[in-house]
């Protein structure tokens, strides 16, 4: 009850003091950076940070949180429309999202994404705000072993990304993991696979691989497929967003429930972030959904699960930040910095006085408003994004390449990263040409460093005892799910083989 009272007070505060403008600006910035390949959510928040110096603390945080929130959503537009993920967490959108779009159901795909972002955002925020204190404490229960188990589950989702050949998927995954080890290792500081090259010594950031292989590579693939020209080719899309009916939503209620719970809970794991959550949500769907065999061909479940997971993780990360002062992701680390720059320390102290408590609940209230605002804005936004389809492909290709290079440069201010983009673009083209799946490789590059550091920390902490990864409720559950994911195809194959051999014996 007190929570509701504080929330409504916060909401009044936002409207009365004109913070709504900051909220809307934040949402627009978040949407803009997340549709540009290479320019990530974290980069968007970093770029906006200097503008908050002269503002008060509440509007600053409201704006940055809004960027974070809409950043986990808007990247799906480019994934669904052009097969270019705006953010790493949009990669799972490439399978069902893009395929739905190719099947002529673009409007439906966008509608499902919008509904998912809305449900994921509202439910998880409500859940986290209601249980802020106990859930914040739960975040502390996650040890490095639990974290490794969660990332491992993310890695096993490669089975669901396999497509035609599970062997190729694993080859891709391992190449990705190998790429992620290039550079100075984070634990002992030894140089690995650097060949004394100044480019390789600082490592290959996953954003470079992602943008290179998907953004740059996609352009190369399109140029390779047919001569690219300046005339209009995109077919005009009439309906911009088509909402699913209530019955359709009810039909996938299990997916909604699974993904929302998963997104919120994984959100509070420090370090997990929208990407891990999105992949795991998709992987779980591939394992346990009723229509799992058709997943990947363009089903709404394949859009709903990762999108809910991504958006739900925002609340999962904001709550530990506000209640404990612990940033669980890159984006929340910078929001923490914004707090500190204004002389405010997030943490239990923030909830101890009436005045600062109102600040916290104003931010909570702004998160609800951000979800609603984001969905309203996306109506207008989709119109703009869809119009991009009618831009001549040659111009669009140039624009994509420009943003790929710019965004990657902005990430670390490094020219050599721009060279790497071209290398990975060529690799992405080659993969596409020889029908080798790209996503397992990208998955390996994204999750590799997280898996490695949490694995090493656990090993150091437990004297190289392997059982440390299994002997707890959280890690045990994740590990059991991972093993199920890995063994499931083997068991299914052998079962179907036995069936077919049995029928053969009968016919013989």
């Amino acid at each position, binding site marked *: 009850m007190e929570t509701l009272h504080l929330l409504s007070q916060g909401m009044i505060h936002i409207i009365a003091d004109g913070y709504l403008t900051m909220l809307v600006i934040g949402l627009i910035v978040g949407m803009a950076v997340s549709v540009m390949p290479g320019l990530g959510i974290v980069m968007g928040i*970093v770029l906006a*940070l200097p503008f908050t*110096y002269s503002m008060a603390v509440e509007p600053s945080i409201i704006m940055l949180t809004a960027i974070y929130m809409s950043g986990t959503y808007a990247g799906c537009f480019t994934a669904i429309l052009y097969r270019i993920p705006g953010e790493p967490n949009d990669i799972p959108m490439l399978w069902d999202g893009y395929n739905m779009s190719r099947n002529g159901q673009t409007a439906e795909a966008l509608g499902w994404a919008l509904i998912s972002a809305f449900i994921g955002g509202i439910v998880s925020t409500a859940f986290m705000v209601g249980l802020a204190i106990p859930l914040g404490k739960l*975040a*502390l*229960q*996650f*040890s*490095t072993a639990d974290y490794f188990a969660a990332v491992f589950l993310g890695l096993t989702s490669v089975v669901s990304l396999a497509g035609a050949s599970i062997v190729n998927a694993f080859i891709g995954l391992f190449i990705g993991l190998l790429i992620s080890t290039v*550079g*100075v290792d*984070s*634990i*002992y*500081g030894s140089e690995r696979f650097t060949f004394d090259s*100044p480019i390789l*010594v*600082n*490592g290959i950031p996953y954003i470079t691989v992602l943008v290179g292989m998907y953004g740059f590579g996609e352009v190369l693939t399109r140029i390779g497929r047919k001569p690219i020209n300046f005339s209009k080719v995109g077919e005009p899309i009439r309906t911009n967003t088509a909402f699913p009916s209530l019955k359709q939503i009810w039909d996938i209620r299990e997916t909604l429930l699974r993904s929302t719970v998963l997104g919120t809970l994984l959100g509070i794991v*420090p*370090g997990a972030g929208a990407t891990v959550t999105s992949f795991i949500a998709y992987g779980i769907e591939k394992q346990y959904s009723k229509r799992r065999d058709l997943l990947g061909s363009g089903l709404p479940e394949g859009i709903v699960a990762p999108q809910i997971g991504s958006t739900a993780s925002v609340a999962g990360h904001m709550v*530990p930040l506000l209640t*404990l*002062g*612990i*940033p*669980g992701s*890159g984006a929340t*680390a*910078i929001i*923490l*910095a914004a707090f*500190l*720059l204004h*002389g405010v*320390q*997030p*943490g*239990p*102290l923030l909830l101890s006085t009436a005045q600062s408590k109102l600040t916290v609940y104003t931010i909570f209230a702004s998160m609800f408003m951000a979800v609603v605002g984001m969905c309203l804005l996306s109506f207008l936004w989709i119109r703009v994004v869809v119009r991009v389809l009618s831009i001549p492909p040659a111009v669009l290709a140039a624009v994509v390449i420009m943003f790929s290079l710019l965004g990657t440069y902005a990430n*670390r*201010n*490094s020219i050599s990263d721009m060279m790497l983009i071209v290398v990975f673009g060529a690799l992405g083209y080659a993969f596409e040409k020889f029908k080798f799946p790209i996503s397992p490789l990208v998955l390996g590059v994204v999750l590799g460093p997280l898996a490695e*550091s949490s694995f090493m*920390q656990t090993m*150091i*902490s437990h004297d190289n005892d392997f059982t440390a990864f299994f002997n707890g409720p959280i890690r045990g559950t994740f590990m059991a799910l991972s093993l199920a994911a890995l063994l499931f195809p083997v068991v299914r194959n052998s079962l179907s083989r036995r069936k077919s051999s049995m029928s053969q014996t009968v016919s013989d």
Partner: protein
Amino acid sequence: MSYYAKLLIAAVGVAQLVAACPADAADVYPNRPVEFIVPWGAGGGSDQTARELSKLLQAELKVSFPVVNVPGGTGNAGMVKMLSGPSDGYSISLLAWDTFALLASRPPKWKMSDFITLGIVIQLPSGFYVSQDSDYKSWADVEKAAKANPDGLKVAISGFGSPDDLTIHQLAKQGIVLKAVPYAEPGERYSSLLGHHVDLLYSPIGNIGSFVSGQQMRPILFFSDEPIKGFEDVPTAKQSGHDISLPQRRAVIVKADTPPAQVKVLSDAIAAVVAKPEYAEFLKQELASPASYVPTEAAASLMESDLAAMKNMAAGK
């Protein structure tokens, strides 16, 4: 008017335009933005220090000092970026002691003579922390437990080869063997202590202030020569019989072959801004020592002695 007359007028016009430009604009340093490299991600302690200085330096020298984050390899990536650029004085960098310690533990590709220190701008005492509800109430408890069970107590540090690691290593030489677990991300480091996944946390005080005032963590030992103001009841390492003091320091540096006149402009500007009340307020907020600033020459000798101490501590690793 003849063609030549027009040409003459045009020529005079151009000459006037050229003359109108302030003649000194090209000579006066700095006349364009100076890049301020932070070899760590946005939001950390180094980043906050640089952003505060950037704001004040801009007011002082009337050009902007855009902060550029170049994270990676314990600050190595940022160092390499600055050292491989031109030495025209338009690129300065923040050097944290985590990066400086690399010279003692694993020699990087650069050396101390590659850069000039414009001044040490912040010094934070480091210490050991326990969670508020920990069974270890004091440093004496920890010492007793560590002696009874060597390598049994876990301490969260920022990484191997860092000043944190060197301190743990030095303690081991003195009979207190702790197990160091590296957490590169500050957030993970703090939650590992609050979630009881480690027994102790080693950290500079700056980032810990909120956890201490929020009664989530307690300092039990400071590695400083004098007791810390506000924490007078917490013993210093010296009082506990350990002659170890490796505070977290951060300096602003520039490439070694930068023209001396420009080095002087920059170091004078830093001396001027750190004397401002805003900066004193920033140091206070970070719980840094109020007399953090060390000018160029004194900084160089302090760094020599720190490096010698760290090499000594790293010996036998």
